[in-house]
């Protein structure tokens, strides 16, 4: 019964829900934004969540992780999505997955425990252009004595402004290679930028950064693995945000009265809400299937990553647009949280490739 949550997952969901409501409510995002916080999330909150196991949900226990799978991770991040929690779990996941998938024993020893404890943050630095691409990076890795020299620019590096280390993709001749680069490395420039959803991403300039042979993690296969898993996990977070926003909108439809009746009694709105309900049901199914597929080590993970993210992008955006419209005037005010969800929908749609990108990749994977 892969689609039905088991008891452990149910318990995790309840814990996560309680925790996010208390420690990472939407109010917190607002407060961080209004204070122009340069970190963009609560460090104490992140350490606390790490203590509960979230920084290393998928990391085996011997490396300091919780040793659970993606199905469990999905249950938790769905809850984080409900409150638009800005905690850096996604960047952290990309860091740990890169280490788990490609690192040597020594590299894992060096990084994993600290990352799982939430005291060290590692993130992926891959994108370079105006949108996500999996083509060979432009950033170059040139062989030099005992290692490589990296040159290039990376954009939209999630939480890059506070990361302690990066997994940087580069081209080594005609193949992709991933390297671990410390935030303090000579020749590395980090520039914080604020995104419309009040989160931070960085632009990295690698101006002759030297790395050792031992800092090399793997190639295109590893990058695909990390990106596919991150895409699936992000889709789970998007599902959570979508469901929360839909529930808030339904409540508004039931309680806001015009013409002497609740606006939810107008068929024009009822039908749109019902359509949205169907789309969200399909989203829930495909997200769950993708999470379970990762845990089962199935070969259709890449295809399901595309399927989940294509639908998550479209459905979250549709829900956000409908939510704004159905709230009327208040829906476009900063005071109401709906706008925060609306902004988040746009950002998440772009991360790791938007819906048309995902459909194109799905088609390629299917051989057409």
């Amino acid at each position, binding site marked *: 019964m892969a689609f039905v949550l088991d008891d452990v997952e149910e318990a995790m969901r309840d814990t996560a829900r309680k925790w996010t409501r208390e420690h990472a409510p939407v109010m917190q995002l607002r407060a961080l934004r209004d204070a122009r916080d340069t970190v963009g999330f609560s460090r104490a909150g992140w350490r606390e969540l790490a203590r509960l196991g979230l920084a290393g949900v998928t990391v085996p226990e011997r490396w300091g992780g919780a040793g659970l799978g993606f199905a469990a991770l999905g249950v938790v991040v769905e809850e984080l999505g409900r409150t638009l929690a800005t905690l850096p779990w996604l960047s952290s996941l990309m860091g740990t997955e890169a280490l788990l998938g490609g690192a040597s024993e020594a590299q894992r020893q060096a990084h994993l425990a600290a990352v799982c404890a939430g005291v060290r943050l590692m993130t992926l630095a891959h994108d370079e252009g105006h949108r996500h691409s999996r083509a060979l990076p432009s950033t170059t890795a040139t062989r030099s004595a005992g290692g490589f020299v990296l040159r290039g620019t990376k954009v939209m590096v999630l939480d890059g402004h506070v990361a302690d280390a990066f997994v940087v993709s580069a081209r080594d001749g005609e193949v992709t290679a991933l390297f671990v680069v410390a935030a303090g490395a000579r020749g590395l420039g980090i520039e914080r930028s604020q995104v419309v959803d009040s989160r931070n991403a960085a632009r990295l300039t690698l101006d002759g950064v030297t790395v050792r042979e031992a800092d090399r993690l793997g190639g295109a296969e590893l990058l695909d693995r990390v990106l596919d898993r991150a895409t699936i996990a992000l889709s789970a977070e998007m599902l959570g945000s979508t469901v929360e926003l839909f529930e808030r909108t339904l409540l508004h439809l039931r309680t806001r009265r015009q013409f002497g009746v609740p606006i939810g009694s107008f068929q024009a709105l009822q039908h749109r809400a*019902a359509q949205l309900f169907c789309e969200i*049901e399909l989203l829930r199914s495909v997200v769950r299937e993708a999470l379970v597929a990762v845990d089962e080590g199935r070969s259709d993970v890449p295809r399901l990553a595309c399927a989940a993210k294509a639908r998550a992008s479209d459905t979250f955006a549709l829900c956000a647009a409908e939510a704004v419209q159905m709230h009327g005037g208040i829906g476009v005010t900063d005071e109401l949280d709906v706008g925060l969800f609306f902004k988040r929908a746009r950002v998440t749609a772009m991360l790791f490739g938007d819906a048309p990108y995902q459909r194109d990749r799905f088609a390629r994977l299917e051989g057409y």
Partner: protein
Amino acid sequence: MSDFRGEVRAWLEANCPASMRSPCRGEAEWVWGGRRARFFSDDARLWLERMAARGWTAPTWPRQYGGGGLAPDEATILDEELRRIDARAPLKSFGLWMLGPVLLEFGSEEQRAEHLPKIVRGEIRWCQGYSETGAGSDLAALETRAVRDPSDDRTWIVDGHKIWTSHADKADWMFCLVRTDASATKHEGISFLLFDMQSPGVSVVPIRLISGASPFCQTFFDGVRVPAANLVGRPGQGWTIAKALLKHERALIAQARDTATAEEEPLEAMARRYDVLGDPLLRDRVTQANLDSLCFTLTLRRSAETAQSRGQPGPESSMQKLYGTELNKRRKELRVAIAGYRGIGWEEPGFAPEELQLVRDWLRSRANSIEGGTSEIQLNIIARRVLGLGDGRS
């Protein structure tokens, strides 16, 4: 592998004829059973007989009524094993899909013992007498009436008509909604009646669809005499039974669409054949449809798992009906779009049979979002029953 799975697999290996292990090539190969049953092949007859003998045409019905007596998880295993070998449905039947489940819930012991075994074996073919010219979406407005024979209160006399009655011209019996109490409210005056289509006073006139086929009829009742024992439940309980049956019907329509999609040539294969994959818009539409089909199939599986303990289809059957039929329309539209000039033919010569079928299927698909309750009605049900949107009074 569980013992049961092993047993099922071995039995199917020995009993499912080789020619029944591939999807039907068109509706002509479907088996509907009934007094005037037509079998496409001897294998089709044999396959039905063998499955019916085990009660596996109705896997979860109790054995005493000829069913398989399987627990839900066993039925799932049987279903999986049938899919594994691409086995055809041995029997398509309104009796299996719609009437049987409500007889199990509302029928008398006599009614179950009389009708269920014949449904399992495909001996009697049923049709559904719900819609009338004045009562479509507003089904409870129906006017066909049944009154007690003043000289014999063990008999109802039915007068009126039904319309859009699928396969009325080929069916043996009808389950029919009739008004038995003109003084009661719209919903409370309705009863659920079963009668033989050969009864004096029943006549049918086929109606042709835009696809050219005539799968349904207008059905007239002129003083049809029906034994009182053929009334299911209590007089006035018809609406409750009718709604329960509709849930089964909707879940079924969704599933049928899902199966039909699985049996079709994949859209991308067709697009390659017609050399249109280079068109980025068409390619994206193909992918969008494929992804939606994938997500929909997963959703059916998820609902099945969730409902397994509950047994009865819930309001999610409306969601499935709505999404499944709208998706099917979209896919059929896409097929004729891919075929271009080859997708607008009506008759030979000049077009291949499968191209003509494409067009007929496209036209037929337009009825999917009307039959079994229109898409708008499903949206109403979802909004009110699932989402709790209403006028605030309820």
